[in-house]
């Protein structure tokens, strides 16, 4: 059961990820964003299989919810229609494929020689919360300050300058 689910979610993740980057049918940014949502949801399925239930929920809420709404909002605000006519440049495509192929070969070769650990039952939300609010309380507070700074920065950046 676990194996079947793993293969389904892994195939969905990789297929939708590929369709974000190369979509043979449409070059529309909205289509890419929709496939990005599907990729996020399949990754959250993989998180569930890894027994990281809290992170799966956070992934759906933050990525598939907030981040993708922001993406779609900006795409529709800017009305990017002319990018569909642009063709990919052959030279940069070939170079990019070569570089990424080399990187993939190195990474997969490294993974093959890795030592495998045994899976144990961890990942309860209660234990995660305990760790977060005792040992890692300070980074947690810093993160909240970071979010505040980002919010102020975004408001400042997107404000029209008044003459």
């Amino acid at each position, binding site marked *: 059961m676990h194996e079947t689910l793993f293969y389904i979610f892994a195939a969905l993740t990789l297929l939708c990820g590929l369709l974000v980057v190369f979509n043979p049918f449409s070059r529309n940014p909205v289509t890419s964003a929709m496939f990005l949502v599907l990729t996020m949801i399949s990754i959250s399925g993989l998180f569930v299989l890894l027994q990281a239930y*809290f*992170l799966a929920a956070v992934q759906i809420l933050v990525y598939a919810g907030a981040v993708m709404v922001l993406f779609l909002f900006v795409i529709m605000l800017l009305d990017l229609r002319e990018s569909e006519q642009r063709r990919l440049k052959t030279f940069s495509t070939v170079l990019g494929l070569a570089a990424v192929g080399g990187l993939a070969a190195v990474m997969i070769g490294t993974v093959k020689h890795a030592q495998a650990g045994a899976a144990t039952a961890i990942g309860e939300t209660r234990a995660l919360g305990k760790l977060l609010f005792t040992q890692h309380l300070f980074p947690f507070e810093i993160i909240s300050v*970071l979010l505040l700074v980002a919010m102020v920065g975004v408001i400042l950046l997107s404000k029209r300058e008044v003459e």
Partner: protein
Amino acid sequence: MDIGVHHYLIVSAVLFCIGLLGVLIRRGLIEMYMGLELMLNAANLALVAFSRFQNNLEGQLMVFFTITVAAAEVAVGLALIVALYRKRKTTDATDLTSMKL
């Protein structure tokens, strides 16, 4: 065959490569940004897999912080793209060459 840490790491590596390819060959700034998001998610997947197979919750904690920082980063980056579009009327990386000699 049992699903081990290798399977998750290979999915993560391939997803990272797809994201990098998107950054390298797509020319729209928004599409390049989506490639960045794919790479971040691939790293998160690898961290969660390590956390499960090493019996250590710190990896999941790290992913929690990464997701938060990524949300802040997306907000700032998209605001920058909107500001750029207001000034230049384009979001295509091939048109943004004012730093070129």
